[in-house]
């Protein structure tokens, strides 16, 4: 029995890898700039935000371009994953109806795919850091895997939850799009968490707040996350419980609903 379970585990893992590689390959196939698009999008957004907020609205934040990008790259991983993974069951109805396989690999491969894009954007961030006179620290070797793991686990719970419900309520695809747009502004991406003042406890109810702060502190100040990261970790546990619970309850109905 154990041998079979191990075999299945290995196969599931390989399936996840194959799907992730396929997505990586397909995403920018037949484009001239290819993977560079993954960098251009947050860089352009960063440039416009820099112009609007630093030059025009006169935000008093030193090295604002760095401040923005160190948050925009992890945020892009987060929002693109949720947005693209939401319909990952619903749009693969044909596969779900015809083949028996561990279905959770579908949303997870979207998350993994976007994670790879995020990790590949770190060198670009490094260029900006060096240009601003900063230096990478050996602490990155601990911080990057740690924060990647927390964000990955958070995403896995969220996408499992949303993608499972999306099979039955396709509205979720539109809802997540709207919600992610709003979420962007209530996450300390454009401004530091300390600017939120008395509202700070409220902002800490957002699992992405401490995570974005932690990414920024790691990249700009070379410091490891403080106790506030525990808020995010608590959200990871909640998202995992909800995601696994919803998936288990709803999975049986996927083939009939699609």
């Amino acid at each position: 029995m154990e041998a079979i379970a191990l075999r299945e585990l290995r196969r599931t893992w390989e399936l996840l890898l194959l799907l992730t590689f396929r997505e990586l390959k397909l995403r920018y196939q037949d484009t001239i700039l290819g993977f560079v698009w993954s960098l251009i999008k947050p860089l352009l957004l960063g440039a416009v935000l820099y112009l609007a907020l630093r030059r025009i609205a006169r935000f008093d934040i030193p090295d604002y371009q760095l401040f923005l990008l160190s948050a925009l790259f992890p945020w892009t991983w987060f929002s693109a994953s949720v947005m693209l993974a939401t319909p990952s069951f619903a749009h693969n109805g044909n596969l779900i109806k015809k083949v028996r396989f561990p279905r959770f690999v579908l949303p997870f491969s979207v998350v993994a795919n976007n994670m790879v894009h995020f990790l590949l954007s770190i060198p670009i961030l490094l260029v900006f850091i060096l240009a601003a006179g900063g230096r990478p620290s050996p602490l990155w070797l601990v911080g990057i895997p740690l924060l990647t793991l927390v964000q990955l686990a958070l995403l896995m719970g969220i996408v499992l939850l949303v993608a499972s419900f999306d099979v039955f309520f396709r509205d979720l695809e539109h809802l997540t799009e709207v919600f992610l747009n709003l979420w962007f502004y209530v996450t300390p991406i454009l401004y530091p968490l300390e600017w939120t003042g008395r509202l700070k406890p409220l902002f800490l109810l957002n699992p992405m707040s401490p995570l974005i702060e932690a990414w920024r502190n790691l990249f700009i100040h070379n410091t490891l996350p403080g106790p506030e990261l525990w808020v995010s970790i608590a959200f990871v546990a909640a998202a995992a419980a909800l995601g696994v619970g919803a998936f288990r309850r709803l999975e049986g109905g996927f083939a009939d609903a699609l």
Partner: protein
Amino acid sequence: MLSETSEAIVLEQVGKRYLLNLYRPDSLKTALLHLPSVLNGRQRWPFWALDDISLTIRKGESVGIIGPNGSGKSTLLRIMSRIAPPTRGKVTVRGRVSALLELGSGFHPQISGRENAILNAVLLGLNLREARERMPEIIEFSELGDFIDQPMRTYSSGMYVRLGFAVAVHVRPEILLVDEVLAVGDAEFQSKCFAHIEKLRAENVTIVLVSHDLWSVARFCDRVVLLTQGRVAMDGAPQPVIHEYLSRIALLTSLPTPLPSGAPEI
């Protein structure tokens, strides 16, 4: 461990109910508007696609499932392959199942036949190493030659199903469930497919074959089950069951008046 028992698939009083929509809450709005009726299920019409099916299929048996359209054949395969759970009753399946409900599920036109074949093989139950090891056999069987490294959008529909079939039969399952997919390719490729199924049979693979092609059912199966309206109408040796099915069709088509439709279950 698994060979101690000789039963491959056991269905005990299996029923599958579909709720047909009067108001299917496929969006939040309709669900909210019809919340009371959605919650108590009053607006939906229960339809039993399968009703009280008890079947035992032994290891190494080849069983054909026949019956008119809408009799529940495909639903039965879907339940045996555990793609959808039964509404009631119990399903026990012992052994590695490969369900051939469709050829080339998940094939993507933008990537090569080789990459698609590997992903498909892993989807159907192999691990990556086994899938890579079997690629030469799969390529040879599919007769694709150098086309294997071309993106699948360049394939003809014949090439597409040939690759799908080649992968499916090289997954080497202990139980093979086949839904009406054998009629693929030209006559030559078809006979090759049949020869391969024959070989699997000789290797004691359990085969469940859903088909309208009574000739191939008679040729490949040791036993045939006739389904009508979600129930087992007859179960036994191929000749008498096929004969019964054909005589029912003859009876129906000779009726002068429109058929009285079967009384609904509800």
